[in-house]
């Protein structure tokens, strides 16, 4: 019989199980909305890549494949640390939980650091869409379209990562205050789902943006 005095159950729920299942369904439904949100940009990308494959290929080669690959590896690793954090929460191991959350934040921040360095590089190379755009290539007009999608999609992705990192900071504070135990760690699990989703978005962004035409 679960110790109800230590498992906080909100008044609209009958028990902790209903609460946990509701939160899980709710988070998955929210992630479906995120798929559609990013999906709109994927449609735009698909439309223009199919229309201007050469320009996209040329523009894509201007992205730094080493940094992109490194970032992908970093993000995948952060998903591992996040999964480990949820696992630790499930076992009631507070110090491991906090440790893995910190690890996830560090990796996520490293990703963002590299990303913003890449943005800065692109700015210096005059590859930011708008008035200053200049690409010496066969089709600069349509290559600018590529960069519009590059900045819009990775920018939106970065915003989601920042939100995730902030969420993790909040989780660390609450974990240190003893809010989570093996009986109740819903927020950690939900944050995990969110973080893995953001990783999935990048798993698609990386090849579509960095690997259009490298052969």
């Amino acid at each position: 019989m679960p110790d109800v005095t230590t498992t906080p159950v909100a008044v609209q729920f009958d028990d902790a199980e209903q609460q946990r299942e509701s939160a899980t369904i709710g988070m998955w439904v929210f992630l479906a909305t995120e798929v559609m949100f990013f999906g709109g940009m994927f449609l735009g990308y698909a439309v223009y890549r199919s229309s201007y494959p050469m320009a996209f290929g040329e523009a894509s080669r201007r992205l730094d494949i080493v940094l992109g690959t490194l970032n992908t590896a970093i993000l995948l690793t952060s998903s591992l640390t996040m999964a480990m954090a949820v696992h630790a929460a499930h076992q009631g191991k507070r110090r491991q939980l906090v440790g893995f959350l910190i690890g996830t934040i560090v990796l996520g921040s490293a990703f963002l650091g590299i990303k913003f360095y890449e943005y800065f590089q692109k700015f210096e190379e005059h590859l930011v869409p708008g008035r200053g755009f200049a690409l010496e290539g066969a089709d600069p007009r349509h290559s600018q379209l590529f960069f519009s999608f590059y900045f819009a999609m990775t920018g939106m992705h970065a915003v989601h990562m920042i939100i995730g990192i902030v969420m993790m900071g909040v989780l660390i504070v609450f974990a240190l205050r003893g809010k989570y135990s093996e009986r109740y760690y819903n927020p950690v699990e939900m944050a995990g789902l969110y973080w893995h989703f953001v990783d999935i978005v990048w798993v698609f962004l990386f090849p579509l943006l960095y690997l259009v035409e490298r052969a």
Partner: protein
Amino acid sequence: MSHHHHDPLDHEHYLNVSYGVKSWLLTRDHKRIALLYLISITLFFFLGGLFAVLIRLELLTPKGDFVQAETYNKLFTMHGLIMIFFFLIPSIPAVLGNFLIPLMIGARDLAFPRLNLLSWYIFIIGGIFTLTAVVTGGVDTGWTFYTPYSSTYSNSAVVLTALGVFITGFSSILTGINFIVTTHKMRAPGMTWFRLPLFVWAHYATSIIFVLGTPVLAISIVLVGLERIFGIGIFDPRLGGDPLLFQHLFWFYSHPAVYIMILPAMGVMSEVITCFARKKIFGYNAVAFSSLAIAILGFLVWGHHMFVSGQSEFEGLIFSALSFMVAIPSAVKVFNWTATLYKGSISFHAPMLYALGFIGLFTVGGLTGLFLATLAVDVHVHDTYFIIAHFHYIMVGGAVMAYFAGIHYWWPKITGRMYPETWARLAAVIVFVGFNLTFFPQFILGYLGMPRRYYAYPDEFQVLNVLSTAGASILGVGYLIPLIYLLWSLRYGRVAGTNPWNATGLEWQTPSPPSTENFEAPPRVEGEAYEYEEVKVA
């Protein structure tokens, strides 16, 4: 029947359990949040109506002489934006859905009460941004924001308005998430899926659309904003961009959005018709599955808004065929409501008057939709008043009438008091007459070729336009009368009691108004929905 000796409104209920602004602005009670929405959308309704009045005044005469052309563009834009995003889309779900769903399923509240309150605040913030745009000069792009006008050339408050709509979209998304999780997880013991009131099925289907469609609107607005601010050129033909990309993204949401507006209305219909015909719904399963079918098929037809846009003809063919298919589940519902009425014991209270009006007007609107789905016809009537008449028949003759039906039907439950029946019936008839006089001439005008979004027109169209404006003034009166008597009833209306309609449904098993927790103990459900044959009329 004797009157009560004491005032049953003496009991503690959700309205009198606490007083003060903070108890309302920080409430987690779904019933109070529903009322917060009710007040907000009523204000937006009359603001949107004001723009309609100005439009109809201009159209009294063939020349553009009441307002300037640019002003007229802003009028119809803001009329559309406010009515769609700030009235119709939230109306039934955020007011009646929020209030009733937990009651109907035997729950204490929705799954996520704080998210519910957040959704209202987001709605208000989005509304404030949009109102700011309205008062600082307005938007003139049409509510459809077509590029490249909206993304490059318009000189109006596009970004501000886009921000307002973007923010408000999250209100919809949160409501959708809440309704889906609530329906899955919060039903009382014995309340199986197929015992749910069809109102709940309707809102579940609507929530599928909220959740899967709204984000695409959000991203399309973001892209317009980015293009406008940074000049990045996704929709800019000078850069090889395609304005149609915006239209695909926009209509992917905005077509299902019309089903967001009609599905909850259909949910109201199933409740009102069964009660006032004293009869079980004909074909419960068919109606339930039709709701889901409408939600799903509704995502496959958006290109019928783009037949003449430059979309490929092949694509047009596909969307035309799919659009014919989406009419089928709607027709199934109309047949089933009609069959429910057949040999029913019908009484003509105000909710039923609105419901009967809905059946007729929705049928006209729906059938004209089939005309528009026919590619060859649409080529001629696209962007004419035929389209305007079509969607107003469904959105006003359908959705708004159902909203009024629902407000009247559940008014006693929400407030504990009855509205004055005679005035309500009178208003319903006035609305019906005014509505048809306003919009039927527009079918003719459109067919004859009068384009939409123009403030001037050829002289020969004046008579029909005058009729339409006359109808609009009658319709306006019809909408004002309930505002007056519903407010009056809060103080002077007859006390309603728990179940003034002798209706089935869990919401009628709890006092009027309900207590904050809805039920003293979770009800156990044993019977099916709409067991009217078993209900004894007192």
